[in-house]
């Protein structure tokens, strides 16, 4: 039971906010000797398994690391092409880690606008009058729930197929969006909801941010931060905690499920 990701899509189909909250998926690492018994091919700037499933390596998995060093798309860490590197017998035995390819931010943007069009087609092909677009999409590994507001913003949540209570979660996310994105005077409509730069390292609570405010100078971005995290008179702790939802530092789900 889990929430996998949250997407917020503006009325033009642009992705304005995204959050992933699942642990890295099952990955398989194995040492190979020269003729590689998997067929690899290049797809979307990644090296994918095209044929040959074994030991948890499946068709569609990408090469994630070679000899423990992460690859960078179709290039190895030192800039050589992965396919070329693996085609050279001198580099064997080699240990390769395979796993489901992670979505890049470009792909997320593309998928968000793709869903935007699917949503519209879903309502056009309706056999009944007055149908909305796709509200729930079911697969064997996840369910996608979508809530479109009257103003056209779509909140999309990917969750476990058995997870209940997503409808109220979507309403809650809408509420948080209204409170902390829309009411922020530095937020411009339809634009990405900016998250705080933590260098990819989630920070556990609001306090470091408040210290930052005291320490740093007043760029617009910092002003924005202070606006977001300034505790209000009524219930200051709760408000500043909730502001952090948009900051990548607290998993949205923990907070909302609590």
């Amino acid at each position, binding site marked *: 039971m889990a929430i996998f990701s949250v997407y917020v899509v503006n009325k033009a189909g642009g992705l304005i906010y995204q959050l992933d909250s699942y642990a890295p998926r099952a990955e398989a690492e194995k040492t190979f000797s020269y003729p590689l018994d998997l067929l690899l091919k290049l797809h979307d700037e990644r090296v994918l398994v095209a044929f040959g499933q074994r030991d948890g390596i499946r068709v569609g998995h990408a090469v994630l690391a070679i000899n423990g060093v992460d690859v960078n798309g179709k290039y190895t860490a030192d800039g050589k092409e992965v396919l070329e590197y693996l085609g050279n017998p001198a580099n064997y035995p080699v240990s390769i880690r395979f796993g489901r390819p992670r979505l890049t931010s470009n792909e997320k943007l593309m*998928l968000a606008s793709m869903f935007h069009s699917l949503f519209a087609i879903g309502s056009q092909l309706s056999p*009944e009058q007055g149908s909305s677009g796709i509200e729930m*999409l079911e*697969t064997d590994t996840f369910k*996608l729930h979508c809530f479109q507001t009257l103003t056209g913003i779509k909140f999309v949540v990917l969750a476990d197929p058995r997870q209940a209570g997503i409808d109220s979660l979507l309403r809650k996310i809408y509420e948080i969006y209204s409170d902390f994105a829309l009411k922020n005077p530095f937020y411009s409509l339809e634009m990405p909801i900016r998250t705080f730069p933590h260098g990819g390292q989630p920070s556990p609570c609001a306090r470091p941010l408040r210290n930052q405010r005291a320490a740093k100078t007043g760029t617009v971005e910092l002003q924005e931060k202070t606006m977001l995290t300034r505790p209000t008179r009524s219930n200051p702790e709760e408000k500043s905690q909730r502001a952090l939802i948009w900051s990548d530092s607290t998993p949205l789900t923990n907070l909302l499920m609590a």
Partner: protein
Amino acid sequence: MTVHNLYLFDRNGVCLHYSEWHRKKQAGIPKEEEYKLMYGMLFSIRSFVSKMSPLDMKDGFLAFQTSRYKLHYYETPTGIKVVMNTDLGVGPIRDVLHHIYSALYVELVVKNPLCPLGQTVQSELFRSRLDSYVRSLPFFSARAG
């Protein structure tokens, strides 16, 4: 509960069969265009879902629902796609769609030497058996259709 319509596509996107029962709204475009739009949507959903999935998938896309209808999807390894639109009260109907494929399409079309594959099914027997099978489903409404 009710069944609105049913599409059968082959792997190239040709609409092999279409029938409707309780359909209150047409898409407002010629039928041929509608089939293409439907196939295109399913094709995109399939690729969308396989990219979005956090885990490796087995069956892939199963169904989606809007505020008014639910679309059920079943695909065979050979790429035949069975798509049924029902109202929201209908649960998983994978077995029903599988039955349409295995007991009707395979038996009456694939095994019929007079039915060329990859074209709209002309067989009257297939049409009538399919119609009576769908009408006999527990969630097919008793209302006149």
